[in-house]
């Protein structure tokens, strides 16, 4: 198989980072930081997700087509969210 094989040592390192990030994000929730709970949590979550996708899911060596697929999924999720929120976030806008 032409595919590149990622060695276990990489997996262990990624795993260590993931666990560290988990402790970090849970730790943050005990601090009084207001809206940053959501922002920070989602940001750390995104980093973790990217790590999992790149290494555990081999996306880093993945074919162009698989990048396109997952990119499309995320892009369309963005459309759904952003356009739905154009309604919700502007409901209280007044015209006069």
């Amino acid at each position: 198989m032409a595919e590149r094989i990622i060695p276990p040592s990489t997996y262990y390192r990624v795993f260590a980072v993931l666990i560290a990030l988990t402790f970090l994000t849970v730790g943050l929730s005990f601090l009084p930081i207001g809206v940053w709970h959501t922002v920070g949590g989602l940001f750390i979550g995104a980093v973790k997700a990217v790590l999992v996708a790149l290494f555990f899911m081999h996306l880093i060596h993945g074919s162009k087509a698989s990048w396109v697929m997952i990119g499309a999924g995320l892009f369309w999720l963005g459309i759904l969210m952003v356009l739905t929120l154009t309604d919700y976030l502007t409901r209280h806008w007044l015209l006069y």
Partner: protein
Amino acid sequence: MPVFAQIQFQLFPERASTTAERVDALFFFLTAVTGVMGLLVTTLIIYFAVKYRRRSEHDRTPRILGSLRLELIWTIGPFIIFLIMFVWGASVYLAIAQTPDDAIEIYVVGKQWMWKVQHLDGQREINELHVPVGRRVKLTLTSEDVIHSFFVPAFRTKIDAVPGRYVQTWFEATKTGRFHLFCAEYCGTYHSGMIGSVHVLEEEEYHAWLDRRAEGSPALEGRKLFLKLQCVSCHTGDAQGRAPSLEGLFGRTVVLQDGRRVTADASYIRRSILRPQADVVAGWQPIMPSYDRLLADEKEGLGQEEAIIRLIAYIRSLDRDQTPVRTEDFPPPEVNPATSDKMTR
């Protein structure tokens, strides 16, 4: 010929509001543009199909791959036309969405399957709406159950009544007469029966209509008394009440317990209030207390008879389904609904 005369046939709806003029102008513009484009396309197709029809099995055809210039023309050309359509449509819409401040305010509640209209001065109507010609009218709508949609074709006015929130629209009628009112959002079995009419009246007529039950009118004051004196706690509008419904009572013949038949006129009602035991309606318990000497209100300077007149006027005006509910389930909101437009909190 009489057969044909009976057939009602229309091709274009009546135009009876200022909005209708704007909407129709947009409609004619769109019809013209799309008409031209549609004709262009169909003519070309038919022309090509005839001119270049196959004459033999061995027809030779050229190799035409395309033309960037043409492609650009028919990408950008329609796009510009579309932009004009958008801007025009948006401007018409903004005129509809921007509700005026100097308007008559009317509250409309949709309910399976009727429209309950409540004027600010207290009149209520069902499946009817009376408005004056040439005045702006602002509607604030909500629904008690599912989504309905308030639609007056002659005004080109439509808006969904959504449960749990208020939405607003407005119109200004330009013609007197009676116009259809439809429910346009599917709402269940009798969706198509949720129809009524909008009566556009001349200003004076409208005031006369208002006066029949309007602010300061005896009927409206009577309604307030009816609520204040708790009559409504027994005389509910439905069959569950401890007392007969008073809707449509006035002028009817009432059968009493002792077999007498009396006409429910003003004096009968007055007696019923002051000495209820005198004329007990057949089938009911004589539990109604006498209101003699309880009706006057010193602070308001209101005498007993005055109060009775008002009550009578109110009972006289009381139509089907208009008995107020004890807790007034949908009172007009105190705040300007526009500012509470966000989801209900």
